[in-house]
């Protein structure tokens, strides 16, 4: 089949990590049953005999399960490599780390580019529209499969924060601590608007072919690159862009009176766009952005955000960044107030940085110190020790 000639888009057997086939049907929010389906995931560290040291790491929109491994397509270091390792913030001598590619993703978990068993063709737009809750339901099946009753922690930034909140709301008994970073309890109108721009860019690409590009041996890489470029601007801040690029010119002494990338910032964005299309599936981008747009925890509970955490009590550590205009501090503060209304155990830290939304992926010492302190405090209360293997 022609799709097999697109090697960069196929999950490959030689990629590191694990995959689990879930045989049972998963009833999605859109009332469609999906299954059997595959979850591709990666782990670091070892599950302790009490099964009390598991941390589920939830990746963001364009992230994947390769938290600390070189990316199998790009070779880039794992997206949270700086946090993971022996003695690290996510200490592999203490915790068992799990990260699964989300449902609808394109790194081995079932998504729109996998084969629809009913047709023998890639799902494309026949794939059911997903929600964040559907992604979390799938993760819960994985966690059940691993024999873990309660996760020590669910942690993630951006869309990962949405999942961390969804876990605490939907499965409060299964979460000891929840750490949503640079997140919100709902996707704002502005964020939906940016996502719509990205989706329209993809769908306007003639190579998108109504979503059937894989079957036709094509790839809407120009549309996907534009979507990525627009989105990437929202991940930064005016101050960071200015600090990094200013009005500096790219390999030239003067503007060229044309439409080449005269400015460094243009060149940078083009690079971001062109490298992204090598590793990401355009239809996955449509489905995952849609899932984020639909996210609204209060709406699931009659419009009351405190009611979303009614039964709960995981511990929460909510973190925002001063220069994040995509998920601004006000969103985190609304979450804190909702959790206060149910007297939940919550910590909230706003971190001063000019790095914008992407600060959660970057070297941000205050973030690391906050996470380490919170996790260590929780581990003491939960009785999760370091080097438990050598003591056993």
């Amino acid at each position, binding site marked *: 089949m022609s799709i097999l000639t697109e090697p960069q888009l196929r999950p490959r057997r030689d990629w590191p990590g694990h995959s689990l086939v879930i045989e049972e049907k998963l009833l999605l929010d859109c009332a469609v049953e999906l299954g059997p389906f595959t979850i591709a995931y990666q782990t670091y560290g070892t599950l302790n005999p009490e099964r009390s040291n598991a941390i589920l790491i939830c990746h963001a929109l364009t992230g994947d399960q390769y938290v600390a491994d070189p990316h199998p397509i790009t070779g880039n270091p794992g997206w949270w490599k700086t946090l993971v390792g022996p003695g690290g913030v996510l200490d592999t001598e203490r915790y068992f780390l799990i990260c699964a590619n989300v449902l609808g993703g394109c790194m081995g978990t079932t998504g729109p580019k996998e084969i629809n068993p009913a047709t023998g063709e890639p799902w494309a737009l026949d794939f059911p529209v997903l929600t964040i809750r559907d992604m979390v339901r799938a993760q819960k099946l994985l966690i059940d499969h691993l024999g873990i009753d309660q996760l020590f922690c669910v942690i993630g930034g951006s869309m990962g924060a949405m999942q961390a909140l969804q876990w605490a709301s939907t499965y409060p008994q299964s979460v000891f601590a929840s750490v949503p970073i640079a997140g919100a309890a709902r996707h704002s109108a502005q964020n939906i608007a940016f996502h719509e721009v990205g989706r329209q860019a993809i769908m306007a690409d003639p190579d998108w072919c109504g979503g059937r590009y894989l079957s036709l041996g094509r790839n809407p890489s120009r549309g996907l690159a534009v979507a990525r470029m627009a989105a990437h601007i929202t991940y930064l801040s005016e101050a960071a862009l200015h600090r990094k690029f200013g009005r500096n010119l790219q390999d030239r002494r003067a503007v060229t009176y044309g439409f080449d990338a005269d400015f460094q910032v243009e060149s940078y964005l083009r690079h971001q766009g062109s490298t992204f299309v090598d590793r990401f599936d355009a239809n996955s981008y449509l489905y995952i952005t849609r899932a984020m747009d639909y996210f609204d925890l209060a709406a699931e509970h009659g419009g009351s955000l405190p009611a979303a955490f009614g039964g709960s009590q995981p511990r929460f550590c909510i973190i925002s960044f001063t220069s994040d205009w995509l998920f601004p501090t006000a969103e985190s503060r609304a979450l804190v107030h909702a959790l206060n209304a149910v*007297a939940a155990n919550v910590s909230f830290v706003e971190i001063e940085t000019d790095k914008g939304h992407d600060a959660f992926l970057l070297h941000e010492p205050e973030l690391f*110190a906050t996470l380490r302190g919170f996790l260590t405090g929780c581990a003491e209360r939960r009785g999760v020790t370091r080097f438990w293997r050598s003591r056993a």
Partner: protein
Amino acid sequence: MSRAAALPIEVAASQAAPASPAPDGLRSDLRLIAEMIEPHSRVLDIGCGDGALLDYLAREKGVDARGIELSQSGVNAGVRHGLSVIQGDADRDLEAFPDGAFDVVVLSQTLQATRQPRLVLEELLRIGKRAIVSFPNFGFWRVRLSLGFRGRMPVTEHLNNSWYDTPNIHLCTIRDFVALCDDIGTRIERSLTLDRHGRPFTLDPRGSLANLLAEQGVFVLSGRTDKR
């Protein structure tokens, strides 16, 4: 008196014995507050600073301790030490809590820095079964000397900012505070007056002597009768 009045105010401040840290390193007024809190109770410390009281309560008394702090450095220090602290302030962030959410709400050396002290006090009594409030007494004799004889805004150990950079915008005397408690209709369960070394002494908080000799007041309040 004239000698004291002649002292440069900064010297008067520095001559005060350092608030003698107890063996556990807890500030003396915080230690007194900690002694008033039952083990295993649920406590909210508003303006918790770096979380010293929370840390002590959690470790020594098994208290479910939460904090609110305005400064980012304070919040981060607290969370780094595994404490439950949120960034926020007393004026804005109390209304989200449900009635009676805490056994004790602590407001130490913070009331005078709030925009609406009366409202804050009423919120404390709504969300906590009891409230412990400590504040610097503006009726303290050194304060009066500085203002009365030198004609300068006082700078003491507990009021250690100049007028132009002080966060303390609503200072009061012990008598003022007692009057506010009466006005709100809360019961003063217990009161302590502290000298300038942080040592407690017992005087009627409604008397003029307490208002003159105490550098700080610590009050335990409970409940409200009808708001007048």
